[in-house]
């Protein structure tokens, strides 16, 4: 691919001016950009902005936009807060060699349907902090149509949630056919489903149903799975049909809920 004008900003302000002010393409990890092989008239490489971090900020854990999938997978901070959630969800992304490249910010910005990370972040009620003055919850970001250029500084996750992840794949490191995250947050249950194959989406009706129960149990878990499958849309791609995805959705949702209630 060709990049006609390559910039390597040293500050967020400089990057903001390039991306938002001048329309330069923001290069995060760049792995998917390379596969897409599109030529870019102008690109801003975000690797020198000090955005590769995972840290506690008050009631949140902040993921710098350039934190890699491998960083998240092996983070002791995330493991302490959420158990094996991030490790289990992210270890299926290709090989370690790719997970050291792909970034949290790139995954969020790309709204990729296959993204395991988006499913987890959505269930955990994460928000995106855009440089320089805007924070938006991930759910509303994913529901909105792509708009004006933006620069993601970090993603913040409330620390008080517990969640589990389930997915089905054809092979261990392929894109998921369907991925699920079930979370219990301070505001109640949140069920997210990704790889539909569209980007991850919440299942509010399944969440409300679970909130009405004291303990979901076996029957409640199954019922919530069926509600989730009915309230979402699914599509066909080379990995699975919409019908197949709708069939396995209740099973995976119920498994995730049961695991969380153990």
């Amino acid at each position, binding site marked *: 691919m060709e990049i006609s004008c390559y910039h390597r900003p040293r500050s967020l302000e400089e990057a903001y001016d390039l991306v938002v002010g001048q329309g330069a393409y923001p290069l995060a990890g760049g*792995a998917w950009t390379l596969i897409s092989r599109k030529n870019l008239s102008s690109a801003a*490489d975000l690797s020198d902005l000090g955005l590769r971090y995972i840290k506690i900020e008050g009631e949140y854990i902040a993921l710098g936009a350039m934190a890699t999938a491998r960083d998240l997978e092996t983070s002791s901070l995330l493991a302490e807060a959420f158990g094996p959630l991030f490790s289990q969800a992210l270890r299926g992304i290709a090989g370690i*060699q790719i997970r050291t490249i792909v970034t949290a910010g790139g995954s969020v910005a790309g709204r990729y349907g296959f993204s395991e990370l988006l499913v987890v972040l959505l269930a955990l009620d994460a928000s995106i902090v855009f440089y320089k003055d805007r924070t938006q919850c991930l759910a509303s970001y994913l529901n909105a149509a792509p708009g004006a250029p933006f620069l993601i500084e970090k993603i913040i996750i409330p620390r008080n949630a517990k969640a589990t992840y389930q997915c089905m794949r054809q092979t261990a490191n392929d894109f998921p056919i369907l991925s699920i995250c079930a979370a219990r947050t301070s505001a109640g249950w949140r069920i997210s489903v990704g790889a539909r194959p569209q980007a991850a989406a919440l299942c509010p009706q399944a969440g409300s149903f679970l909130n009405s129960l004291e303990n979901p149990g076996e029957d409640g878990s199954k019922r919530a799975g069926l509600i989730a499958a009915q309230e979402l849309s699914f599509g066909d791609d080379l990995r699975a049909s919409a019908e197949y995805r709708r069939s396995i959705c209740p099973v995976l949702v119920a498994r995730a809920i049961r695991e969380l209630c153990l």
Partner: protein
Amino acid sequence: MTLSCTINNKAVRLECSPGDVLADVLRAAGYKEVKKACGTGNCGLCTILMDGLPVASCSIFAARAQGKTITTIQGLKKEATELAAFIAAEGAEQCGYCSPGFALMALAMVKEFRARGMQNFDEAEARHYLAGNLCRCSGYQGQMRALKNYWESRNE
């Protein structure tokens, strides 16, 4: 553009264009041990270490190498030669095309497992660690035996 980086303990300068892939730039500069096949980061042939971390050099912009320390399998010649003897003893080298990436990844794995304090070879963890390195010939059984033997030889 010109990149300044360290490759296999030598300071080098590489000429590239901003859109170039690191694997292509390394091979053009003579580092032919960096193989390239899928071009999408899925096969592991192009694995290098960048600042000590395994990276698919076919899936990262060459510009990202600026100021970095890069290690190819040639930079770990002594360790790789020792490991290769174990691989050959199990007949696991087969056609050999995946071997540079596989050996580099295996050595990175051993180093990381040691750093974690792992005492015994954990085949399940090893398979997970090496899942990004495909081999069309071996079926992986011989490779796993070779790695277990290599690991245990390090404990002696």
